[in-house]
């Protein structure tokens, strides 16, 4: 009480400060609710349509009147004529995904080892070509690519899709491997070379083990790319036995009776693996993309 002016000022400021804090907090909460609704409405839609029994799709309710898992059962047991090869197509998707991962990792790591570790001259030309491929949209290349696959005799063959996915995943792989490779001291290679190790030994014994985190990140990226990609698979695969899940799924759209509940159930089964993989490897997916950009 000896210094009322200072005390009064402090007492006067504190509630103001608190009020402002709780106002910001309320605004943040309101924003959170808006973001939550915006994000979840389409996902909610896919789930409720999948839960509706056949024939109940055309309603004006905003939640299913008689929810049932019937559609999922139909998908799992291939109990509808659009779905008669579902598990085979699921296997095709998996085959494309795994082959893409292996080829991308092998081709990408070999190339970036040659450019970044053996330091071949004009290696920057290769990494520039890769960067250029990375920024060209795949859809712009689809028409000539389709023709080329006919020339190669790969039409309606899963390997044509694998070639396409590897083509678009490898540039990213080279980019990330080179960025990550900078953090591995080149002295390790030099020491091994003095001890008489050949480049292939250095590649297997030093480079690959130390690159493991980058390999995991790029492998996940390639798997998701191959699993999620639609356009090339749609253009290059036409028979029911060679189709992958997304192509089969989009076929529903062209049917007249449009069994939307089966379609949404298929979509959920198709979307679950990549979502699970994404959440499992979440931390590693963005690391390479930031590229220390803020430092500039």
């Amino acid at each position, binding site marked *: 009480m000896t210094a009322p002016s200072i005390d009064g000022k402090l007492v006067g400021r504190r509630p103001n400060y608190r009020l402002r804090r709780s106002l910001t907090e309320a605004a943040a909460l309101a924003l959170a609710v808006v973001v939550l609704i915006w994000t979840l409405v389409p996902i909610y839609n896919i789930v409720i349509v999948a839960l509706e029994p056949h024939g109940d799709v055309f309603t004006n309710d905003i939640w299913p009147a008689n929810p049932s898992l019937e559609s999922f059962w139909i998908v799992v047991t291939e109990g509808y004529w659009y779905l008669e090869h579902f598990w085979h197509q699921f296997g095709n998707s998996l085959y494309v995904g795994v082959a893409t991962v292996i080829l991308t990792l092998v081709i990408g790591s070999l190339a970036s080892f040659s450019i970044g570790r053996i330091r071949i001259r004009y290696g920057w030309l290769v990494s520039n070509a890769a960067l250029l491929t990375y920024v060209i949209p795949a859809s712009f290349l689809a*028409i000539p690519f389709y023709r080329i696959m006919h020339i190669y005799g790969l039409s309606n063959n899963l390997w044509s899709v694998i070639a396409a996915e590897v083509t678009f995943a490898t540039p990213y792989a080279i980019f990330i491997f080179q960025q990550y490779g900078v953090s591995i001291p080149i002295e390790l290679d030099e020491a091994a070379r003095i001890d008489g190790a050949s480049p292939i030994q250095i590649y297997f014994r030093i480079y690959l083990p130390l690159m493991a985190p980058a390999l995991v990140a790029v492998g996940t990226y390639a798997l998701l790319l191959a699993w999620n990609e639609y356009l090339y698979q749609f253009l290059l695969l036409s028979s029911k036995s060679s189709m992958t899940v997304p192509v089969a799924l989009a076929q529903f759209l062209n049917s007249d009776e449009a069994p939307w509940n089966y379609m949404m159930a298929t979509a959920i089964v198709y*979307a679950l693996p990549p979502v699970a993989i994404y959440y499992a490897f979440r931390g590693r997916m963005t690391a390479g993309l930031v590229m220390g950009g803020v430092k500039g």
Partner: protein
Amino acid sequence: MDDAQVLRAGVLPGPSPSVRLRRRAWRGSLQGSEFTWAVAFLIPYAALFLAFVAYPVAYGLWLGHKPALYAELVSEPIYQRTVVNTVLYVAIGVNLKMFGALLLSGFFMRRRWWVRGLLLVYVLPWAMPALPAFVSIHWMLNGQWGLLNNILWNIFGIDGPGWLETSRWLALGSVIASHIWKWMPFWTVILLAGRMSIPQELYEAADVDGATGLRRFLHVTFPLLANLYLICTLLSTIFTLGDFNSVYFVSGGGPALSTHVLATLGIRDAFEIGRPDLGVAAVMSALPLMVPLVILLMRKLRTTEVQL
């Protein structure tokens, strides 16, 4: 002993100086066997690039090289509308998405359990494949049976329009909104990672100097984030220009072919009408916009790489 070592030792008279120079120019400081390995390691990627990038690109350029094609293309009303759509789609879509991502990345910096939980939900559109997401939105926007109009009717008593069936602008707006829904989470996460790598001391120093709120953002956060923001915007512009799925699945180019963009029009011309040359021409007409963007982006990415 291979010949490179012999040459360096100067034991034997080597090939003429010009050959030696040329070989040195190619090999750099690499010794013979290492050079062989380096080339061998590059062969798979070189083969992939030649067979599946260089050849298709050359083939595409050859398909679309006739000037008459472009005259035919420009005279089509569909094409003119498509160009307008593409410009609107890219300009509005990219900027709304990136600006939203910039704001939301600031929001997700808050250290609250519910903000962290929300981030997990918020990235779901990005984590799921494009096809199911857009097919769901397509059905959700159905004028008669779609969820959106059901919600509008049941909760607000509004009779919603047929979002995709009636008007070009409603359909285009829906496509842009779907694109933002799908891709904003990705760019938010990237910008969030960028914000997190800003040293905390800078904010403390700014705090001492009395900078808060907007001024803190303008004078500390944004200058440090600007380069990343620019790279992301360029990359996103190119990706959006080539985005096929959003338009193809949400509006399908309808109503009455009024919402096509160049990427979907090219595929339509090539595979539905059977005119691959016209399709290639449609796609190639985006090059005047693409090439400067790509050059700018490559430059930015290279300088950033050096700074790493």
